[in-house]
Structures are given as C-alpha cells and as structure tokens.
C-alpha cells in the first residue's frame, strides 16, 4: 500500500524518540568534559621517559645514545649528551641526557622511538589532554616534564610494564651473576697464590 513505508519509518523514529528516554544503551554519547571513557591498555598518545626509584634525575633510564633522535621520522626529539657519567640500574657508569626535549606539536605518535630504544627508557603515555595556551614554550616538553615513574608506567600499561621489568631483572641478574663469578674468581685467585700455575702454563 502507498505510504506504508513512511508509516514504518515513522514508527522506527518514534521508537528511537521514546526509547532514548527509557533505555540508557540507546544513548551512546559520552558527554566528554564531565565523563570520559577509560583508555584501553594499548592506547598510545605521546612518549615519556621512564625513571626508576624516587629521584627522576638520578633514575632516568635514558643513556643518551641518541638512537631515537636519529630514528624519529618527523625529527621532534632533541638530545644533548652529558659530559660526565652516572651509574645506571645495574650500577654501570653511563652517559645521561643533559637535555631531552620533544616537540609535541611535531610528534606524530608513531612509537618508533619506543621500538628502537635498547634501554626501555622511552614509552608511550595515554594522557591525551595536552592543549596549552602557550604555543611555543608550552609545546616543547623538557626532560623534567617527560619523566614519569616506573609505577606510573605500570598503572597505564600493566602487561607491557611487567614484561619490561622481567627482562630488565633478568639482565640485572645476569650481570650480577657475572660480577659474582668474576669476584669469586678474583677471590679464589687471591686465596690460592698459584702453586699449580707452572703446570698449567707448562708443556709449551
């Protein structure tokens, strides 16, 4: 019959109209400033620098190797290597960045810096409200603004962070075991002043 489709359509819109007052599932709108959708674990917005411990300056994992600076496609990372060295998480003396700036107006959130970093020092943040009224200084983040604790990293990407921690722990254990073995060897050397040494060295 003529007009049947119109009536069907009108019934559908009427169902929407009244249904939107009754069922909450119909209204998918999230009223943003007041309510937010929690970010998923895989979300990534903008890189940050991870530090261990309480002091951000002492705990920065970054060793200023400048791989990320070279790999960054839009070239938004600026690193100055330090003159002196500080111990890293295993106690080895390393350089550290005396300047580490990222221009967030240039960054394209590609995560390449994270993937190339051999020291697990740079990771992706989920913070997305980065607007500022200062478009020059406000968009260039220095290392203090970029530094986030390992606990924060755990809170935003729990799975990934525990994997990283396990890997770092393994490495640290390996280094420690090596150090212990070396120390034991040295101690053994000191304790037994080599009577059989000629036999080892002999035969030549």
């Amino acid at each position, binding site marked *: *019959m*003529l*007009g049947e489709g*119109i009536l069907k*359509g*009108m019934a*559908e*819109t*009427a169902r*929407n*109209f009244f*249904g*939107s*007052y009754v069922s909450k599932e*119909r*209204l*998918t*709108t999230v*009223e943003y400033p007041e309510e937010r959708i929690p970010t998923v674990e895989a979300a990534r917005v903008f890189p940050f620098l991870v530090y261990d411990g309480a002091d951000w300056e002492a705990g920065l994992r970054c060793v200023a190797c400048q791989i990320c600076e070279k790999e960054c496609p839009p070239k938004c990372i600026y690193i100055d290597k330090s003159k002196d060295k500080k111990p890293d998480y295993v106690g080895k003396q390393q350089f550290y960045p005396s300047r580490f700036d990222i221009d967030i107006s240039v960054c394209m959130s590609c995560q390449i810096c994270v993937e190339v970093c051999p020291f697990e020092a740079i990771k992706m943040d989920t913070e997305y409200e980065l607007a500022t009224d200062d478009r020059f200084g406000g968009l260039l983040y220095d290392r203090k603004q970029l530094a986030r604790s390992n606990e924060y990293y755990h809170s935003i990407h729990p799975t990934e962070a525990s994997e990283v921690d396990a890997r770092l722990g393994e490495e640290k254990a390996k280094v420690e075991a090596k150090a212990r073995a070396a120390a034991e060897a040295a101690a053994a050397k000191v304790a037994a002043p080599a009577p059989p040494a000629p036999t080892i060295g002999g035969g030549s």
Partner: protein
Amino acid sequence: MATSPFFTDLDQIFIILRDWLVGFLPASWRPAACVVLEVIIIICVFPGLFALTTVFERKGLGRMQNRFGPNRVGPYGLFQPIADGIKALIKEDIVPFSANAVVHFLAPLSLVVAVFMEFAVLPMGRNMVLVDLDAGLLFFFSMSVSTELSVFMAGWSSRNKYSLLGAMRAVAQMISYEVVLLLSSVSVVMIAGSLSLSTIVAAQSSYSGIFPHWYIFTPWGLAGFVMYAIAATAETNRSPFDLPEGESELVAGYHTEYSGFKFALFFLGEYLAMFSISGLGTTLFLGGWSAPLSFLTFIPSWIWFFSKVMLSIFVFIWMRGTLPRLRQDQLMNFAWKFCLPYTLLTLIVTALWHFMGEGWMRWVVCTAILAAIYVFMGRVEMRSEHFGPRRYRYAE
C-alpha cells in the same frame, strides 16, 4: 456542559485584559489601540514560540537519532535560542559585491511581513481573531503566496548560482503544491459554506455524544487533510520537500548569501510559515480552538488551539527526522500526477457527501470511493516508470 464563571473568564482572559488596558484611553482611541495591542501580542508570541520550537526541534531530532541534542546552555539547553539570537545579531552582515543591495535587503523583510499578515485572520481562541474577514481563507492564501515572491527576490538578487537554483526550485515547488493546498481546503469551504475562518471553526464546534464534528473525522475530511498536510510540508520547504535549501546540493539554496540577522529573519519566516499553515490546517480540519471531547470544553479554547498547532509542529519535526529528501522529478510527479488528481477526486466526493444527505450510506460510499482510488493509484500509477527508480540511459 455548563462551565463555571471562572473557566469562562479564563477562556476569555486575553479579551478581558485587553479591554481593561484599553479602558484607560479615551473612547475614540480605543478601536485603534485594540488593534495595535493585538498586533504587538502576535508579534511577541509567535517569535517566542519560534525560539522554543528551534530548541525542541533540535532536541527531538537528536532523540530520534539516539543522541542528546543541545543541553549546554541553561537547564536542558533551554536558553540555546538566546545564544543563537545573540550570535545572529553580532555576526557581520555581508552583502555580495555584485548583488542587488536593495532587493537583497528587502527580501527577508517582505517574507517576514507577509508571513505575519497570515496570523491576522487565524482564530486562536473563542473571540480571539485579529480581523474576522469574510474571505479570511482567501486573504490567508494570498499572503502565503506572496512569500514565493520574497524567496525569488532573495535568490535572484544574491547573484549566486546556488541561490538562483534554490529559488527556482522553491518557486516551482511552491506553485505546484499551492494548487493542492488550495483545492484541499476548497472541500472544507464547500461543506461549511463560508470563507470566513471563524465560521468554519464554529461549524465544527458541536458534538454528537462526546465526539466532536471535526472535518477530519469524515472520509473526505481525512483525505483532504492528508493532501493538505503533504502540500503544507512542501509549501513550508520542510523535509522531505526541502529541495530549495538542500544543503548537500545547493549549500543553503536561496539564502546562501545571507548572514547574520537577515539569515535569522529567513529562519524566522520559515518557522512562522509552519505555525501559520499548521494553524490554518487546525482551523480547517481539526476544529480550530474547539475541544477534542465534549467534557473537556472547560479548558480554555486558546490552549486547545496552541496545543493542536504544536502537535502539528511535532509531526513536521517527526517527518524531518524520518524521511530522506525527494528528487526534483519525484517531487513534481508526486504533485501533478498523484496529489492533484486525488485532491480533485476529494472535491467530487465532498460534493457527493453533501448531496447524499444524512445517514450511514454516505459514509460507506465516500469511504469506498476514496480508499479504492487510493489503493489503485498506489498499486498502479505510483509503480509506473515515472515514480520508480530512475533509469540512466547513458550509464547502462
């Protein structure tokens, strides 16, 4: 039902207030003062209603699409029209360099003035009509036709291809559907025997049992009302007949080159036209200011009139939320090949209804004729080549 003096006073409250206010003036000034006062009230009430309708339309459309609609300005977004009004007022008024500045300026003004004139003859309640003309219906239609001139003035003077195309579409559409609009109201005139809108309302305000004698409750009245509603939607350029301002094709049609308050005037004119044409439809088919059931007559007549108008506006919004826009050829075919013949048939059936006299026989005969022709036209004519999917000769 006998009504208490309180309800009678409430019914006539605006008349009593007007007479009290005018009573302060010398007797010779009173008639003129009455008219001025009523005009001022019309000029205040309907734009106020327009402001409310814009926000309710946006909210209603939102709900039909499962979203909230405006809810930021004031409680439930009710102050949105104030924000919109301020925005329209402080915007720059741009007149294109090559436009005809005088006509460009006059077009929105003449549109709004003509639309306001339509309200002069509408009976908005018992004794509430500005001028009770004997040929009120004729006056109404002459005013509503003159809006076409304003639309074309706007489109022509803007000197923009989109404006001109929009105006040409608007004029073609409005003239086509004007015929249907006029003819569908002629059947009411045939039965009521008068062109005066007050007489037409009075003819419908009696009851049998508790049910009113509205014309929509007769076979020819229902058919006429449907045709009237379709034509009214097309006349006011509302979706699905919003081709003249189809934003996906023509930017904004005839008001592409208008900005600021001139644009707001066009917007106002469009909504006022909706109010006035709904008011006329209410008057002709829905019993004007009379109550829908006989025991509800104690509620003031003006409340009934305005609630019927707002209900029609809701249906307009509902259709806008449902139907997609027609194509130009579908629009014209629908007007000339379906609406016009069917309206002419309604006229004949109305005459038949009139001459068959009282009794159940005329109900059966008139309903049968109208329904049979409706089904026939839907089954046979509307499925013909002209209405079906368009065949592109060179694209196949």
